[in-house]
């Protein structure tokens, strides 16, 4: 008989009006890496909340090492040796790595901390599993990758046997991802059991032994990754075949829509400029992609272009008009649409209804505001309903749904609907598919290409290699705030692109 570290058998969890988990079975073997795959809203989070005792299932049992257990709250889960690295880390920013690791289980003698003891244990653990951290560095000063390793050490320090990783790669650079994959393999080899929640198929194929797929709250199946393919997994997840390769006709670039000359933008973090002397052109009917590893000046470049931050120097021209000094509103009215990098920070007012978010860029137009300054609610509702219909934005209560309660994919669809419907000359899309599932990604890529085919200029800023290779007509690589290479996606390879992104290779780029 096989030994399972943890078994969740026939779990059913209902919420008013919805079955979040419908007869789901998940069996985690000792020492295996088990992936849990599913789209947003498939029930992954609910299942994990059940495992942590945050919800009590209506039906089903949980077994640890073959013995039935009752998990009433997170403390019970902790006692059973279940630990989790959340997608958004739960660390105290102003504490050191060591302080964070021992937080809550501080070794002490009569109330005095025994940090030396803790330090030795942490160092031993980090040695054993190859988790490089500096125990005395403050969380706010270290990289995201190191913060994640701190979270992992936190679990190990508590002698957890079952480790759950919730979308751990969403925040990491490609190098950090491969490092994490290695760490996970080491942990499994040492006998830890790992549950890996993800919707990135390549990572699952690389690291997981088995994969359980959920769809719309239902258990679809568990497969050995050795015997399957990414295409098969995605079909299981989405319920239909998804085209991985983006289909598009060759571009027919027209006149220059956007021209940037020697743009320099200051950094908010350090004293150097984040964007240095960047020049580029985007033409009507083409998609230009700025590729690069996160933090190489892409965000600041977009802030400068959209007007969120002032330029140190340089000139921006849109359709022949100098917009260097124009305000954000002026640029928007002149035909720049911007799908922002962080949809919660910039893209949406989460407490507003969906309809109010859909008019965020156009609320002041005569269509929505009367001369006396009153909002025309009926027009707003009609407009919102049209966009919801046309762009298939799904939500609980339609136009009056609070944006906060919508799924990430539908929030992004709402932003895309708003920005595209403005009929822009230039569409700036910054990581438009971040954190979305395969179905939504496919949809968004189609929309970008449709914009291109309608003769708009599209500027895509992306960190995802697949997206960089598939979607654009031209690739510009940004490294440390400079454009270091221009590549043709049809002729280049991921390896070559990687060399440019890592700064190992650079060309003089002519505009």
């Amino acid at each position, binding site marked *: 008989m096989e030994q399972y570290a943890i078994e969740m058998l026939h779990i059913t969890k209902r919420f*008013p009006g919805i*079955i979040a988990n419908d007869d789901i079975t998940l069996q985690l073997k000792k020492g295996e890496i088990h992936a849990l795959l599913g789209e947003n809203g498939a029930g992954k989070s609910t299942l994990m909340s059940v495992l942590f005792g945050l919800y009590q299932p*209506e039906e089903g049992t949980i077994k640890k090492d073959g013995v039935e257990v009752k998990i009433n709250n997170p403390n019970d889960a902790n006692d059973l040796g279940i630990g989790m690295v959340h997608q958004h880390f739960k660390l105290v920013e102003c504490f050191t790595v060591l302080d964070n690791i021992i937080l809550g289980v501080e070794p002490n003698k009569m109330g005095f901390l025994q940090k030396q003891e803790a330090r030795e244990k942490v160092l031993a653990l980090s040695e054993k599993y190859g988790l490089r951290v500096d125990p005395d560095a403050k969380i706010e000063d270290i990289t995201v990758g190191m913060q994640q390793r701190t979270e992992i050490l936190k679990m190990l320090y508590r002698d957890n046997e079952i480790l759950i990783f919730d979308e751990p790669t969403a925040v990491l650079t490609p190098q950090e991802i491969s490092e994490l994959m290695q760490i996970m393999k080491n942990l499994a080899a040492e006998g830890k059991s790992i549950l890996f929640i993800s919707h990135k198929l390549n990572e699952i194929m690389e690291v997981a032994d088995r994969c359980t797929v959920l769809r719309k709250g239902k258990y679809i199946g568990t497969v050995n990754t050795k015997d399957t393919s990414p295409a098969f997994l995605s079909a299981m997840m989405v319920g239909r075949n998804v085209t991985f390769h983006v289909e598009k006709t060759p571009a027919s670039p027209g006149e220059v829509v956007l021209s940037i000359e020697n743009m320099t933008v200051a950094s908010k973090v350090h004293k150097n400029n984040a964007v240095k002397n960047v020049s580029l052109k985007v033409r009507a009917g083409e998609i230009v992609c700025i590729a690069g590893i996160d933090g190489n000046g892409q965000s600041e470049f977009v802030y400068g272009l959209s007007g969120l931050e002032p330029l140190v120097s340089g000139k921006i021209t849109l359709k022949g008009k100098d917009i260097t000094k124009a*305000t954000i509103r002026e640029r*928007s009215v002149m035909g720049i649409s911007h799908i922002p990098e962080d949809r919660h920070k*910039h893209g949406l007012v989460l407490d507003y209804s969906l309809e109010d978010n859909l008019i965020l860029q156009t609320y002041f137009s005569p269509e929505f505001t009367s001369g006396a300054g009153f909002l025309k609610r009926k027009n707003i509702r009609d407009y919102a309903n049209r966009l919801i219909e046309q762009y298939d934005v799904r939500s609980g209560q339609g136009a009056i749904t609070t944006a906060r309660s919508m799924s990430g994919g539908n929030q992004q669809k709402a932003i895309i609907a708003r920005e595209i419907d403005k009929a822009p000359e230039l569409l700036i899309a910054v990581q438009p598919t971040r954190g979305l599932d395969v179905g939504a990604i496919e949809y968004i890529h189609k929309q970008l290409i449709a914009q291109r085919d309608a003769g708009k200029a599209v500027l895509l800023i992306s960190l995802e290699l697949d997206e960089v290779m598939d979607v654009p007509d031209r690739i510009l690589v940004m490294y440390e705030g400079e454009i270091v290479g221009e590549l043709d996606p049809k002729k280049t390879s991921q390896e070559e692109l990687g060399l440019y992104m890592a700064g190992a290779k650079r060309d003089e780029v002519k505009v």
Partner: protein
Amino acid sequence: MKKALRNPSVQAFVASIICIILGLLIGYIVLLFINPEGAAESILNVIKNFFTWSKPKTQLKQFGNTLAKTMPLLMCSLSILFAYKVGLFNIGVAGQYVAGSCACLYASLAWGWSWLPCLLFAIAAGAVLGAIVGFLKSYCNVNEVISGIMLNWISLYTANTILSKVKEVASPYTMYINDVNPSALLPNIGLDELFAKNKYVTIAVPLALLIAIAISIILNKTKLGYELKATGSNKNAAKYAGMRENRNIILTLVIAGGLAGLGAAMLYQTGYMRWECTQSSVPSMGFNGIAAAFLGGLSPIGAIFSSFFIQHITDGGQYVNTNFYSSQISDLISSVIIYLCGFVLFIKITMTNMLNRSEEKKIQRLKVPLADSGKDGDK
């Protein structure tokens, strides 16, 4: 029943009522501790306020007094809630109120202005103070609570200094507007007749109610309200959408300050009260406005009722039997009740949590299939 309890407005109302009852209960317990003999009578008097009087005519007159003092409180609570909707905690409302008091009193007593210019001057003074906080917030990133509290004290002592020039020789109080410059008193427009010739019931009453309605409309129906609330809810998204978020923050505090200044004029220009030039604490009107705003569920219309209630309790405090209690007890009792009023949000959240839990339990108990579980847990 449970479905009704999920409605936000119903929730706000129920929560407010619970707060009031809790406040009265604790006030009663405090009285019991100090002296059990007069507790029941005293707390009843607090609730009865002007009904303590036996003659209907006196009742009406006293009701007019409470009403006259409700309007400045309403303005302060509107000031708080307006700023709050834009994500700002305008604790500087007390200072803005002081600035308004100083402006209208000085203009009427020293310069002999008539009522309308005095009123406008008070609004301007409050608005200027609000603008200072707004500028510091948007251009120097100074937290509005810090600068607001500092300005409360600065404006208090500035007001004391300035108003000393128009005070009576023999007392620390400012002169009577009635004697010096009756033209600065707000017109009664016949309202005094309705309240047994209470001359303190003035145009301020209908004006304040109209302003409450106007604030409600601005927040919910206009482009300005849309922009301001967006800025308050997510400053970054507002900036991204091309709204001038710095201008919006300043504008909000200017409006909030103006409301507080107007509130001051609505009290002092009735002649009901005079300024005490030696006072060393900021008038409580502004701070009570915070409680009124929350008790009213942060709705301008709700604020009308909550302001009246709080003023009612405060006035009722003077009918606590002083044979049993020292005279400060009235302030203590009303402040206990006002303090509890701040718990409205807390009670709302508790209520939602309790509803969720009972719903979950019910589902678990019945193990009903999806089709029957329905949208609400109650049939």
